[in-house]
């Protein structure tokens, strides 16, 4: 078991024949992901990486039966690609592209919601179910199979956290990089219940950062609904207010969205909050020992 994706998930790639799309599609296939085709307008009918290329997502879905799309198109075309996927019946779109305008994502996400399509990202490493299915750009080798679920706004902190968990002798069920833009797809609040319901996930690592209030919403949700242990780290305790820390959404504005308030809310919800990401592995070992 796992959440959202597994070894049977059929995946197409939007922006399949581009440099990034090609490189990562190949890496995903090497990991074992069932990439069943891709979409690049005007290249329909070609074969790329041994898989068929289609002009439209509709064609790709009707021919391959894919349910997930991994999106690598340039930032200006992300909204178009997401909305096309939604209307073509894709169930989950994983948006890797960085730098999509906020207004475009607002429009695209509203449309995805209308068609009940889930989205992950944008500007994220993607999702991986360890040793089964990798849809994204993360280094697959560090995700050993196990019973820890992971949700993170940051790509490299996903790797850092997963690596520590595995070094402690545990492994990952599914890891989801949700991205750090102001508007993102699936967030903690939607992913936590999936991990709660997954019998193969025994504990959850949640990595957040400054800006917005998704972590606060998560804390409220955890308090009411999550029985599995949660370990959390919030990046940006030392970030100056009013400065954008790399991610478009990582900014403390008007005194709101600080690491301190998020850490306090999570602690009050019974979450094991660590002050440094270097402590994630140890904290997981501790909470797992108590189970």
């Amino acid at each position, binding site marked *: 078991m796992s959440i959202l994706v597994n070894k049977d998930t059929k995946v197409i790639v939007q922006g399949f024949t581009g440099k990034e799309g090609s490189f990562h599609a190949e890496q995903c296939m090497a990991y074992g992901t069932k990439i069943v085709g891709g979409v690049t307008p005007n290249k329909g009918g070609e074969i790329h990486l041994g898989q068929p290329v289609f002009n439209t997502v509709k064609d790709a879905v009707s021919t391959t039966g894919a349910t997930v799309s991994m999106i690598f198109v340039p*930032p*200006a075309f992300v909204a178009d690609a997401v909305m096309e996927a939604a209307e073509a019946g894709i169930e989950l779109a994983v948006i890797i592209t960085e*730098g*999509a*305008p*906020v*207004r*475009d994502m*607002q*429009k695209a*996400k*509203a449309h995805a919601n209308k068609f009940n399509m889930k989205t992950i990202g944008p500007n994220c*490493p993607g999702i991986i179910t360890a040793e089964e299915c990798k849809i994204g*750009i*993360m*280094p697959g080798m*560090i995700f050993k199979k196990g019973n820890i679920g992971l949700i*993170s*706004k*940051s*790509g*490299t*902190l996903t*790797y*850092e956290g997963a*690596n520590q968990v595995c070094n402690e002798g545990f492994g990952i069920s599914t890891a989801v990089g949700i991205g*750090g833009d*102001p*508007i993102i797809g699936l967030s903690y609040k939607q992913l936590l219940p999936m991990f709660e319901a997954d019998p193969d996930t025994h504990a959850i690592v949640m*990595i957040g*950062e*400054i800006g*917005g*209030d*998704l972590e606060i*919403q998560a804390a409220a949700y955890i308090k009411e609904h999550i029985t599995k242990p949660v370990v959390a*780290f919030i*990046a*940006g*305790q*030392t*970030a*100056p207010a*009013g*400065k954008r*820390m*790399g*991610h*478009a*959404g*990582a900014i403390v504005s*008007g*005194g709101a969205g600080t*690491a301190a308030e998020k850490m306090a809310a999570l602690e009050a919800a019974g979450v094991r909050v660590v*002050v*440094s*990401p*270097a*402590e994630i592995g140890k904290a997981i070992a501790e909470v797992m020992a108590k189970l």
Partner: protein
Amino acid sequence: MNIHEYQAKQIFAKYGVATPRGIIANTPAQAMTNAQELGGSVWVVKAQIHAGGRGLGGGVKLARSLEEVKTLASEILGMTLVTHQTGPEGKLVQKVYIEEGAEIVDELYLGIVLDRAKETPVIMASTEGGMAIEDVAHNTPEKIIKVAVDPAIGFQGFHGRELVFGLGITDKAEQAKFIKLAAALYKLYLENDAEMIEINPLIKTKSGDFLALDGKMGFDDSALGRHPDIEDMRDISEEDADEREASRHGLSYIALDGEIGCMVNGAGLAMGTMDTINYMGGTPANFLDVGGSANAQTVAKGFEIILKNPKVKAIFVNIFGGIVRCDRIANGILEATKLTDVNVPVIVRLDGTNAPEAAEILKNANIKNIIVATDLGDGAAKAVAAAKGE
């Protein structure tokens, strides 16, 4: 990207948002000529910097004669203005906006930002104009009226009614004027991919008209490509030179005031590294994300920018290689030691893709200042110790 008040007012004019008349000046003499051209007997001399709180910092002054305009302009131009938003170092004033005086009957607040929870823009209005909206939100949150407007339906009549009734505007003519103004501002926000618009204060005049006495605007950097007219308004002198230099090389850099330089891949890990240094008793000198496509040249550039800061006593290179290959970073470190005089200890933690190859490269290079760390915690501890001269 942020713009100046006078530029925001140029955009307001295009959308029919009324402002007092004004002209920008670079010199005291020009300021006086502008005042003469505007006419009247009262003018406001306003420092143009990208920060709020200018009035309290002494950057906005009232003049009652042309001579006074000149005197005040000469005082304000060239001053380093310190406000609650500039940081203690303040900002150099290079332009002043000369504006006609306005008769104020009432001061309101009107702004638009993205509501990240609702995922739509939200219009915020308040009767408490002229005060920092953060303070109003903190002390009297009930005095801020928030109306989220979904772009899918656009600004509707009921949005306008929620605003005017919330503000207690009872005069029908005034209601109509305010609603027209809010609708125009919403249109401006969407059409220009604004991130934030703020009019504080929005004043009501004797005749019941609304005038934007101030104007602040920020835009979504990711959308600037489709707004060349906005991009043209960029004032490079308002941006940190090192941050700009870094971004030209694909690096994301922000100076802090500590002693340990940080070079990290990924924004989250970069913040996490700063937090860990702090947790272990050290102080980070900067945020630096080398990005997903780091190579020898970008790493060398990173060293150069970090070492410009004389406070730096040690550098912590913390890389978890996914897409970024550790051997490339290792080569970058070697390159940097050739290009730049790296005269402080460099603590290197390389993990992930090609980490063993990277370790081999560093070992064989045999550079005196390099200390190898095994993981994040170990690296931060070694960096803190090195900065303390231990």
